[in-house]
């Protein structure tokens, strides 16, 4: 064994020519079309409609959705590539576009044929936008603690509650919303009794309550959603009653690599900009790059960056191979890459000196953008739990903590 995996080959990363071409194409798009408008997006806290539309037309909202449902039929590596390239130029766009994955994945995994046929194609093709509403003001990491309720009334359900921190909730046409449909049978089984529903914008009683003003990821707004006696037919229930927790966990498992890749992109950008700056700026009659302290920072940034890169794509390859080990790998990648990115962002500010905190330099923005990546999609504290619990479960066959 090459613990915790079976053999050396389990750590392999393989790319195919189309991955490199896709990366090139996405990078060119971001450098040519997005980069020049970064200041504008940051200032207005808004991604222009034409950019969103272009990305939709490029199929970026449905990279991993199968072709038969209007998607690109791409793999996890391709998703990671998009997330990294977006993160390298403007991370908020990765969130804005990538959040559709939190909608398409659960429907792909647990939806009926009818639901798949109805909701996947428009989102995959960029014609409609979607969002995922699990989190509430009182329940983030503790998904089982949500309070939004759904009561059955004949062949309909009535939903009440309030969701918070919902990315893309302001522009979404479709939502998957997690509710509690029955009380937990015991304190130990809090995770039972949750159910997902598919909601559409405009349903009576369902509204965007307010936009939350946040630091970082400008252009990717987060909103609160209000549900006041929203009536939803049973045909909009996603998956079985009571399966909500499982569906949520599997969804987040799938999306984890995307966030890791986003952070990787941030780290990449921080390194590139810092290296560039160090080669051009002089202090005390020498270039910054000739100062040892700067070299130390740059070397540290590079080491963490390349390690993160390997983890992100290793996890992606495991996911594409259908290996269950990808769960550990994805959690490791997410925790590591986001922290590596934070390190890189802080060092970038140090290296840039005063320029680093000037708004126009977009250096300080990296730190603002990276902070949330450590928190959302399963906070890094949770990731550490997952890593060890999964490790024990998979390799040793037991779970000492219960859930």
């Amino acid at each position, binding site marked *: 064994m090459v613990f915790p995996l079976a053999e050396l080959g389990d750590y392999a990363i393989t790319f195919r020519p189309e991955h490199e071409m896709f990366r090139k194409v996405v990078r060119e798009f971001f450098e040519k079309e997005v980069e*020049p408008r970064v200041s*504008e997006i940051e200032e207005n806290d808004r991604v222009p409609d034409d950019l969103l539309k272009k990305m939709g037309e490029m199929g970026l909202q449905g990279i991993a959705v199968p072709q038969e449902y209007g998607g690109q039929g791409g793999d996890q590596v391709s998703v990671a590539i998009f997330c990294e390239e977006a993160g390298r130029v403007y991370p908020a766009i990765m969130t804005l576009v990538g959040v559709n994955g939190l909608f398409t994945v659960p429907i792909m995994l647990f939806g009926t044929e009818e639901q798949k046929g109805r909701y996947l194609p428009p989102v995959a093709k960029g014609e409609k936008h979607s969002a995922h509403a699990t989190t509430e003001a009182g329940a983030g990491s503790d998904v089982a603690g949500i309070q939004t309720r759904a009561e059955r009334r004949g062949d309909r359900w009535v939903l009440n509650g309030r969701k918070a921190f919902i990315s893309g909730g302001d522009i979404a046409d479709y939502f998957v919303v997690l509710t509690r449909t029955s009380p937990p049978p015991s304190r130990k089984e809090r995770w039972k009794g949750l159910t997902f529903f598919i909601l559409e914008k405009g349903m009576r009683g369902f509204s965007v309550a307010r936009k939350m003003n946040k630091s970082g990821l400008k252009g990717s707004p987060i909103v609160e959603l209000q549900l006041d006696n929203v009536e939803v037919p049973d045909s909009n229930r996603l998956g079985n009653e009571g399966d909500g927790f499982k569906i949520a966990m599997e969804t987040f498992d799938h999306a984890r690599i995307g966030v890791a890749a986003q952070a990787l992109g941030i780290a990449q950008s921080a390194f590139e900009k810092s290296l*560039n*700056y160090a080669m*051009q*700026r002089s202090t005390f009659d020498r270039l910054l790059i000739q100062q040892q302290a700067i070299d130390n920072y740059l070397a540290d940034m590079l080491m963490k960056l390349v390690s993160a890169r390997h983890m992100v794509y290793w996890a992606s390859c495991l996911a594409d191979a259908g290996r269950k080990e990808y769960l550990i790998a994805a959690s490791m990648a997410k925790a590591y890459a986001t922290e590596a990115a934070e390190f890189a962002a802080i060092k970038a500010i140090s290296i840039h000196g005063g*320029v680093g905190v000037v708004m*126009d*330099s977009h250096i300080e923005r990296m730190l603002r953008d990276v902070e949330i990546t450590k928190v959302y999609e399963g906070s890094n504290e949770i990731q550490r739990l997952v890593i060890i619990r999964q490790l024990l479960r998979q390799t040793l066959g037991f779970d000492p903590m219960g859930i």
Partner: protein
Amino acid sequence: MVDVLFYSEDDELLHELTGLATALAAQAGGRSFAVVLGDDKVATASSVAWEGASEVYLFRAPAVARDHPEAAAQALAQATADHSTAILLVGSTKDGKVVAGRLAAALGAPAASDCASVQLQGEELVVERPSYGGRVKTRAALSGRYVVACVKPRAYPRAARSATAGKVTEVEFSPTLLTSIVEVKERPSSNLDLTRAERIVSVGRGLKKKEDLLMIQGLADIMGASVGCSRPLSADLGWLPEEAHIGLTGIEVRPKIYLAIGISGQLQHMAGVKEAGTIVAINTDKGAPIFANCDYGMVGDLYQVVPELKRQLAALKNK
């Protein structure tokens, strides 16, 4: 004994070629022959004859053929037929390169375009021209019975008036034209010739709104400069005309001072600026490539720097 034939549809460029052609011909032990095309170019033919050309072939052709590169190529081929060996010089304009290409293929001759210098070395014509976005200089040698070189505008000075005039010979000519010019729209701002501007204020994507050009024009006015731009502002946004676009696919300028405002300094833009005397760059991005290619650089917001620069320059004028 090698003769030199030369042509350009642009009169200024034609006068620059005259001096070069005459010098080369003298060096090669031959004579220089200008090719001028068009019934309305009699005055041009005469002035070239007075600037040192041994002979001017004035091809009679109606106006429709005058600006036609196919006609020019055929005229040059026809003229060349009377010379057993010749160097052919064509002004390196857009149409000039079409002329040169067609002519070279018709004569089975090697060709080079956008030559910054042309020298006779033994049996070869050695040329220097820019490549790879202007970053690399290519030196090549052309040899053979006929060789074709397109010479860049302003690479050589205009010829001085000569004591004696060469002969002007009218030539009958009926070209076969495969393309027809259906309409000609003169560019309204054709008095904008940045290629000859001594001072240029150039602006790029850092400029947020078209209206802000007024501020830039104000600075240019104080400096006695012309306004140019990088490709996005003319081609993509249409805020400035094509003639203002400086770069690889735009124009090449050689001012004494070039002020690059809000321009990142990509290779394809710098290709048009590398001959500038002094380059000043103003950009908010410390890592912009232009700072590696400028004489003076300032990291700052143009919306603060430009008004301040105007203030201080105006104060300087008033002293």
